[in-house]
């Protein structure tokens, strides 16, 4: 008897929410409105201001369209998107990270193939090929980029000049020679904060690409390699050894695990370290700091001679949006994304957010630093991108890499031990995928 009452209560509660949903749909239908839901990860005041004006402008041009926008910050977004997906209430347009992160949504049938929409030359021609390629899986396009980002070694020119380094390091030996000179002069060579583990895999991911043969890396990252070979290439251990060497050689500041990326950046901007591995989207933050007064430049992580991977790739990724196959009005959704990536909206994006728009030519000297403009040019020239490691491998493999990134900044974990854990996670993930 008791149990029946429980069930009745639960059903009543469920019924109420169903009725509410049905009512919502009906009232929208009554007004003959096209309603789109839109979920992204830019709720910060400057960023959301851009999106609010874009939505308002699009709605004004299309009076029958209503866009319900919702935004949560980067980290909580990772939780929110999982919950939303599990609930089955998939937003019509939503943000995902490129790479395996998006591929898992594609495999689960949660992303619409939009190849035909982007085929229009006046649309796909707005983006650099490497930018758009990040959204390509098995020859099909699945996403529309809104901003580009890449990782560069940013350097304080005054501090480099102090130790006689005037040319930007072109390869690994020149790079390490500069680091050793800085260290010898008691200048912290590189500011690094790994308390938030994502900062670690930007190094490891780039080094993997330089030291592991590209086809092997692809087979491992996509878990398509035979189980006996999964993540066994010696290049991975080598990459982790290169990464750990930054600590053991004294090229990083002490105890990176106790510093956040933001804290490390503050110390770099204050002139207390000579270099920092930074994202293009951070470039604008240097304005008004001691670093800006000292003068700064940047270079990609230098090539490693003899490395068995690719030396001509740039670590970074575009950010952008995908459309759900459950969207009832894909044409309208795509029209909105087209509008978001017009030249004028691209300019508005960079002006409001100080982040580099993915639209070619939308970032101008008016709204961006000269360094940002050159960074965007470097992305345009890149032969391809090394995507963020933590979104380019299966989630639990990513967790293992993230833990390794911190473990190797401690006192006892070896590159071999760290890679063993990564491999174990990959084997389990492959087994689970079946």
């Amino acid at each position, binding site marked *: 008897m008791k149990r029946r009452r429980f069930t009745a209560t639960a059903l009543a509660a469920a019924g109420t929410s169903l009725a509410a949903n049905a009512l919502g749909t009906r009232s929208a239908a009554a007004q003959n409105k096209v309603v789109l839901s839109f979920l992204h990860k830019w709720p910060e005041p400057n960023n959301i201001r851009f999106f609010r004006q874009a939505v308002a402008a699009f709605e004004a041009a299309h009076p029958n369209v209503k866009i319900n926008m919702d935004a949560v910050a980067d980290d909580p977004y990772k939780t929110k998107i999982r919950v939303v997906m599990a609930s089955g209430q998939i937003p019509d347009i939503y943000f995902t990270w490129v790479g395996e992160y998006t591929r898992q949504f594609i495999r689960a049938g949660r992303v619409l193939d939009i190849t035909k929409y982007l085929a229009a030359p006046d649309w796909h021609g707005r983006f650099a090929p490497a930018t758009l390629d990040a959204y390509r899986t098995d020859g099909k396009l699945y996403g529309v980029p809104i901003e580009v980002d890449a990782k560069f070694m940013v350097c304080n020119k005054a501090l480099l000049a102090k130790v006689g380094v005037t040319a930007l390091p072109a390869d690994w030996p020149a790079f390490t020679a500069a680091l050793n000179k800085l260290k010898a002069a008691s200048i912290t060579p590189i500011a690094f904060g790994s308390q938030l583990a994502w900062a670690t895999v930007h190094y490891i991911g780039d080094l993997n690409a330089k030291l592991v043969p590209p086809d092997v890396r692809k087979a491992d990252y996509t878990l398509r390699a035979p189980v006996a070979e999964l993540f066994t290439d010696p290049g991975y251990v080598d990459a982790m050894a290169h990464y750990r060497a930054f600590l053991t050689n004294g090229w990083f500041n002490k105890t990176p695990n*106790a*510093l956040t990326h933001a804290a490390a950046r503050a110390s770099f901007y204050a002139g207390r370290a000579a270099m920092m591995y930074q994202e293009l989207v951070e470039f604008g933050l240097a304005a008004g700091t001691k670093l800006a007064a000292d003068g700064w430049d940047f270079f990609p992580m230098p090539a490693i001679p003899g490395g068995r991977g690719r030396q001509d790739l740039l670590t970074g990724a575009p950010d952008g949006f995908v459309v759900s196959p459950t969207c009832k009005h894909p044409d309208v959704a795509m029209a909105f994304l087209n509008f978001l990536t017009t030249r004028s909206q691209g300019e508005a994006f960079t002006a409001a957010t100080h982040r580099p728009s993915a639209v070619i030519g939308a970032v101008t000297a008016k709204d961006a630093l000269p360094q940002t403009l050159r960074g965007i040019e470097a992305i345009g020239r890149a032969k391809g991108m090394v995507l963020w490691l933590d979104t380019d491998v299966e989630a639990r493999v990513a967790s293992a890499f993230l833990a390794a990134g911190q473990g190797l900044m401690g006192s006892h974990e070896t590159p071999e031990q760290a890679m063993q854990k990564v491999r174990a996670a990959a084997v389990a993930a492959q087994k689970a995928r079946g």
Partner: protein
Amino acid sequence: MGGLTRKHHRLAAALGPYVALAPVLGLLSVFLYLPLIFDVIYSTHEWSSLSPTWRYVGLGNFQGLLADPLFWQSLRGNILYAAVSLVFQVAFALMLAAILESGLLRIRWSGFFRIAFFLPSIMPITVIGLLWQILYQPDVGLIDQALKAVGLGAYAHAWLGEEATVLPAIIAVSQWQWTGYLTVLFIVAIRGIPRELYEAAEIDGARAWRKFWHITVPGVSETTVLMTLITIFGAIKVFDIVWVMTAGGPNNASDVLGSYMYRSAFRDDRVGYASAIAVVMFVLCSIVGGLQLRWSQRRSL
């Protein structure tokens, strides 16, 4: 009383409590008991937020836990958390309460200490997390500065950045936060002990320690047991302070079951596995709750 008959009154009186309790029961069912049942069902499946189907794996997730070094490491984190909390939040708090109530301090100072000890417990956890992140900073943080100032610079650490020190550092924050709160609860309990007992002991020439051991401790035994159980519950469920301060890092060194469960569900997308961790936490809490129930039944007999 108008048209209401006596029968109606009886009916209303009989149903009244049930009607009043119904909303609570409904809310509890939807937000507590149903999720609990679902959790057990989820834990026997392998599924993710994206999987179109669920794969029944029976006890597979639990077998996975037994073989998972991270699970055992997290559980050890909870056990350490519980052990330290019992020493500080129960034993030490009781001693503090006894000192504050002993009359050894002037009334004004006793009041000051009560407020000073209590204050951390009303601060939001995120504020505490950020505050202590700053205090724990290597070199520039207050803790390391203080150690250096008193000549203990050799003991300075990157407290939250080293795998050996991170969990003790977080646990210490919890003690800082909650010991004062439990002290106040103990003060209330001590005030419930008849003064005559202390006066009699004084006439007999008992010293402070003997009074504490033979009057205060037995006098607050009920509160002590309750605080012990609440502290253990808290240690099993702990999540927020860990997540705010380190998210389980570096290299999972500060993981507890709560943080490992959260990461399994929302980062690794292994919802079935995370549900199994939740079931383990529930079972551990149930055992402690069962002990509490048995103890309180024995008291009432």
